[in-house]
């Protein structure tokens, strides 16, 4: 990377307290344990993981919807943790978020045109007729008929609502878009439309994307870099090309093996993990993945010593004691 990355996350940590009844002290669940990432300008980094991995928490911290317990986030070199008031609003004008649930993220009592106009008014970008014209333009840009500005969310389809969410996020002219599972709730045929739109917008506007997803097949179409999360930690991070071609962490391999392919001749989705995870509130020493690790090389060392995220190849890092060699065959 020649230019400095646009977004840098350093040792992010966030924990939630879970009540265990009136007699015991609350348990501390680490949603995010120690996450460090960097996204170059104009690139797409996909943050992948299953439910409970912590990726949504990371996304929310990046847009300051939540504040981390530890670590820091740098946007264009500036620590966003201390921003307040006008400085925070300026930050919001540069970093926006598109949510997963297109139905839930739009106020059901507000017309969609008004929802897209709100950021313009709040940031003082435009008012009145000027704002209205910009909203119409945004609608066209995301492939919506501007005549739908007066519609309510329930009158639109899922795909249309998601486009409204994208238009709203684009209204302030951001540089970085955080996309929190933007197509997970959409049908396949609509998914493809929205993904194409996102790629298109990125090219036209020079956007940088933090793309949170659980569907690796979708990620493959969108990402330049991929980071895989498991229980609040990054277990593997690489360019998309390397990750799909030569995954070095057993969890990444398990995820890839589990994805069903619409081809009867392809290998059926297999689960290769051991056990079923009972969500443990207590931190265990050693590799957090070892109770479920299917790798034949799993050893006592894994139970005792937690592997750190380290370089295992050009543009590839993994947190596994055996990541230096490619996956064992068979």
């Amino acid at each position, binding site marked *: 990377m020649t230019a400095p990355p646009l977004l840098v996350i350093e040792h992010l940590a966030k924990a939630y307290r879970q009540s265990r009844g009136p007699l015991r002290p609350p348990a501390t669940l680490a949603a995010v344990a120690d996450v460090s990432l960097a996204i170059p300008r104009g690139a797409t980094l996909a943050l992948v993981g299953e439910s409970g991995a912590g990726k949504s928490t990371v996304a929310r911290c990046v847009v300051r919807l939540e504040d981390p317990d530890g670590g820091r986030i740098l946007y264009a070199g500036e620590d966003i943790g201390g921003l307040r008031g006008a400085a925070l609003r300026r930050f919001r004008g540069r970093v926006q978020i598109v949510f997963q649930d297109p139905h839930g993220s739009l106020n059901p009592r507000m017309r969609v045109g008004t929802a897209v106009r709100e950021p313009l008014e709040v940031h003082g970008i435009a008012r009145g007729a000027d704002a209205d014209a910009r909203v119409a333009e945004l609608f066209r840009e995301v492939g919506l008929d501007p005549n739908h500005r007066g519609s309510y969310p329930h009158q639109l389809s899922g795909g249309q609502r998601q486009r409204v969410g994208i238009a709203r996020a684009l209204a302030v002219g951001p540089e970085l878009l955080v996309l929190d599972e933007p197509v997970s709730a959409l049908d*396949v045929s609509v998914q493809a439309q929205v993904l194409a739109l996102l790629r298109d917008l990125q090219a036209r506007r020079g956007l940088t994307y933090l793309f949170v997803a659980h569907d*690796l097949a979708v990620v*493959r179409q969108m990402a330049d870099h991929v980071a895989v999360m498991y229980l609040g930690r990054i277990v593997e991070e690489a360019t998309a090309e390397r990750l799909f071609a030569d995954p070095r962490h057993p969890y990444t391999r398990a995820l890839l093996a589990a994805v069903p392919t619409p081809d009867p001749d392809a290998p059926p989705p297999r689960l290769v993990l051991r056990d079923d995870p009972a969500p443990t509130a207590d931190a265990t020493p050693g590799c957090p993945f070892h109770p479920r690790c299917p790798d034949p090389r799993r050893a006592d060392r894994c139970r005792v010593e937690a592997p750190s995220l380290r370089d295992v190849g050009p543009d590839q890092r993994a947190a596994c004691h055996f990541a230096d060699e490619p996956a064992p065959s068979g």
Partner: protein
Amino acid sequence: MTSLLELEHLSVTFPTRAGPARAVEDVSLAIAPGETVALVGESGCGKTVTALSVLRLLPESATLGPESRIRFDGRDVLALGREELRRLRGGAVGMVFQEPGASLNPVLTIGAHLVETIQAHDAVDRATARARARELLATVGLRDPDRMVARYPHELSGGMQQRAYLAMALAARPRLLIADEPTTALDVTTQAQILALLADLTGRLGMAMLLITHNLGIAAAVADRVAVMYAGRIVEVAPRAALFAHPAHPYTRGLLQAAPRLDGPTRPTPAIPGAVPSATAWPEGCRFRPRCAHAWDRCNSEPTLAATAPDHTARCWLVTEPRGGTA
């Protein structure tokens, strides 16, 4: 070979503020004993309504068309009395829904759920029922059944809940299992587990399965035959291999092209333009016409299911007629 389940000319209409919604129209489908049929479609196509119709689980307001016939094991389901219908549900026909958490009573232990279900279909005492419950839990791959029976639903992960739920559906040794998007709410690794379990169970127990899904990958993994639905109608039916190798209907082809795949291109896949129409206003003629790249004049009238191969049918004029007019 007589079919286990026969749906003939099934039509379901719901009243809505915007007029009657013809959610399902003229759907005919047969499932042989031990066969797994995947009913594939996107939201609004009518697949869930079809599945619910089999056990007459539709809301009161739904009306069935006069020609609708549902036969299970030769018996007319629509003519069953209350008690016979109750015995059928969860008995010879088991059903599993999408959200296991919502289907399990949070104040009952897993054991209580199972015992209740077992005793609803078999006159056995509690001890026998409990022993059977433990057996069922082992069948669905839940280790340590003795501890599992005492657990409450919220203490289990999503995958375990779905397994417990499956155990309930299997309690009365059904001959047909209807699974409505059983893995959609689960993580992909758990999904793989449940799919493998379903494939294993249907094989071992000789159970037929009607699997509702929007994911073609899932259909490819477990189905013997695949039926594709669009806008309330079945638009293609074929054995698994044939459907994926030679999809005949443009919608099926569009879905296959649009589906992101790990072994596919890294560019965004081609999308199907447009959106699914509303059930209160299906398009005239072929319902897929507004979104179809191959539409021509003939498509102004709705096509019927025509065969491209002995057991492969599709609802498209291009199957039987060469395209007339300009290309």
